[in-house]
């Protein structure tokens, strides 16, 4: 057990650091570019230098590096000021790409993966639907065969970066007369296809990270299919396993450090709030969670570096971080008293805006990518092996499943 690099790792770290020092973009190089433009600029440069998607095979735009090397590169990159990457590439690189690597033809892999790695093409994910959220397999978007093509009709929702996306991964229902998990088929789709309309969804936090995507008689050639007809659920599970690994417990915002600093600035009964025992006890419990997640990640990395696959236990991160973040934000607002509710999304210079901003956005983290309740189910059933609940919808034809309408 140690935190030092091996000789090989140290060499790799030095190489990465040297490249970063020379190549992290200067402000002047990106003048005039908007957020997505800057993200693409940086991704392209990493790709040109051989530092994109490190663990992918070289022919797909990667470097054939190990997981640990990817981690080392990330650690080094985090030490620099680099453009904000948001979710522009994480869905394409983190979810679509592994699925294409597993189920795509050689042609598809050659066509899509290098442009995913270089950031030239952004992908989005057309999975959730208004009546298929936690129960994703209840999706109703129809795909019907028409010669060599499929005709798609339906509505998708909670689609991030849809407005920037060149392509999407899409799950559809091709046979409503068999049980729900057996009648689905998985496609890649060109987002410029006629019949695709993207509409932003405004969130309660004021932002619009998500979209609705309407699909009306959208035509997809059969060679864009991933996996067999009717195998869509199985293909989607590959995607989802990678989703869970990629939604981290990100403890930006209301975290131990920021709330502790707040408590050092404020006073309670004329003493620094950090001396107050409630503040200390709560901060300590949150620290235990934060540190626990951090060291759990280190254990996972160690396992990955030994060749283990990421497992369902990564559901812990989002579950713990969501509740913790919401409660910390709420606690910080309370510490600020009346003034704590101030929030001007357009004037971020307010030094405590991070707490209200978190307070308003974290309810979303507890839902997106699987609700707390779904995460607990996953841990109970897939990690602990507890038996599933009786299901009324698994064996009957999808069209007979009760929907309440």
């Amino acid at each position, binding site marked *: 057990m140690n935190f030092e690099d091996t000789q090989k790792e140290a060499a790799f770290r030095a190489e990465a650091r040297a490249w970063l020092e020379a190549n992290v973009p200067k402000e002047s190089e990106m003048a005039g570019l908007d957020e997505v433009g800057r993200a693409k600029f940086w991704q392209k440069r990493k790709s040109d230098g051989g530092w994109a998607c490190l663990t992918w095979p070289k022919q797909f735009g990667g470097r054939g590096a190990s997981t640990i090397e990817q981690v080392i590169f990330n650690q080094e990159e985090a030490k620099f000021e680099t453009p904000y990457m948001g979710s522009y590439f994480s869905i394409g690189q983190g979810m679509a790409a592994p699925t294409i690597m597993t189920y795509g033809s050689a042609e598809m892999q050659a066509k899509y993966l290098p442009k995913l790695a270089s950031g030239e093409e952004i992908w989005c994910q057309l999975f959730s639907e208004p009546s298929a959220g936690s129960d994703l397999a209840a999706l109703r978007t129809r795909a019907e065969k028409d010669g060599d093509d499929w005709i798609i009709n339906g509505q998708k929702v909670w689609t991030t970066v849809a407005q920037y996306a060149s392509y999407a991964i899409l799950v559809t229902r091709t046979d409503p007369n068999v049980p729900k998990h057996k009648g689905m088929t998985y496609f890649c789709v060109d987002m410029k296809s006629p019949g695709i309309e993207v509409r932003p969804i405004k969130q309660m936090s004021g932002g619009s990270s998500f979209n609705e995507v309407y699909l009306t008689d959208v035509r997809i050639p059969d060679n864009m299919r991933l996996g067999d007809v009717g195998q869509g659920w199985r293909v989607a599970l590959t995607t989802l396993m990678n989703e869970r690994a990629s939604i981290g417990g990100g403890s930006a915002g209301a975290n131990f450090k920021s709330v502790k600093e707040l408590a050092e600035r404020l006073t309670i009964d004329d003493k620094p709030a950090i001396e107050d025992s409630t503040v200390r006890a709560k901060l300590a419990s949150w620290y235990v969670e934060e540190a626990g997640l951090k060291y759990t990640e280190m254990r996972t990395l160690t396992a990955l570096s030994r060749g283990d696959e990421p497992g369902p236990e990564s559901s812990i991160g989002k579950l713990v971080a969501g509740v913790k973040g*919401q409660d910390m934000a709420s606690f910080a607002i309370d510490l600020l008293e009346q003034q704590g509710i101030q929030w001007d999304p357009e004037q971020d210079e307010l030094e405590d805006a991070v707490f209200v901003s978190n307070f308003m956005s974290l*309810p979303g983290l507890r839902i997106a990518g699987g609700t707390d309740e779904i995460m607990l189910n996953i841990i109970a059933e897939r990690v602990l092996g507890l038996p599933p609940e009786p*299901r009324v919808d698994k064996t009957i034809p999808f069209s007979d499943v009760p929907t309440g309408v």
Partner: protein
Amino acid sequence: MNFEFNDEQIFVRDVARSFLAANCPPEVVRRVLEGNEHYAADLWQQIVAQGWAATAIPEKYGGLGMSYLELVLVAEELGRVCAPVPFASSVYLATEAILLAGSEAQKEHWLPKFAEGEVIGTLAYAEKAGRTTAASLETKVENGKITGRKTTVVDAEIAQLIVVAAKSDKGDGASLYLVSLDQDGVSYESVKTIDPSMNHANIIFNGASAELLGADGEGWGLLEKILDRAAVLYAWEQLGGSETCLAMAKDHAMERYAFGRPIGSFQAIKHKLARMYVKNTLARSNAYYGAWALNTNAPELPLAAATARVGSSQAYYYSSKESIQTHGGMGFTWEVDCQFYYRRAKVLAVTIGSERVWSDKLITASDLVG
């Protein structure tokens, strides 16, 4: 013993509920939340016309002379619909301040105006982040002129009259003043908050005329008494909001299907809603006791008020956040109304002091009752 509202009080509540269902549907809240109005002035006019602002003001000051038992039920109904009106600041805070601390002349002058809704009032004590104490006050009054800055004052840009806590050299270190907001020497800094369906601003006093309310040097003690009284009323408004969160979550859980059955049939959702019900029920019972103590001006009022306040703040936070969670992705969108309650829950929870402040007061008050 009779620990229940009587039929006349229930009637007042039912009328309020029907009135607000007709006149304050979610579209009204949304209009203020999304628009540039400080509050729903049309709704306020209707509410005032209903006489609600006059409920607990004695008849001799132009009020209806009803009891606080009617007023708490009106507060609950306003909370139930997240009404975007300055009722709390004008009625729970300013009116109560004058009723409690005003001279006969001040009462005669102001209370009829509050009863009629001709004047809207509010109250301010906080000047910076964190818990305010008498010793921390910097606002001061010299020769009848007030200078200082109050932070995040609720309904600041709506009110015509404000009760202000200022520093005093005497007694408990503070005095209360009445300040007309419609004069030179008063200016505002607009403040956006997490709940744009309410108005908040910083108020800067720069030599405005101020009139003493209550005795000089007794301001902090008076403020605590006013806040105890307001806490009961706030608790009822918070309880009303928390009840709506449960009702919305329950409706959604009955209608929304997943895995071939209503999500309300899953224990994760079932137990979540049961916990909301438990918290709301305990909060309601504590609010009953608070109402009784307020109405009878019982010696237990400080304890009863703190208990009601803490219970309602806890219940509303839980219900409002778990209602969003129950609604899933839709609950987090701008178009669904869950957000009204999540925002309002937090604003009401800090407006007269956070849960931690009231928890502290609760223990202090429990010493006195024993």
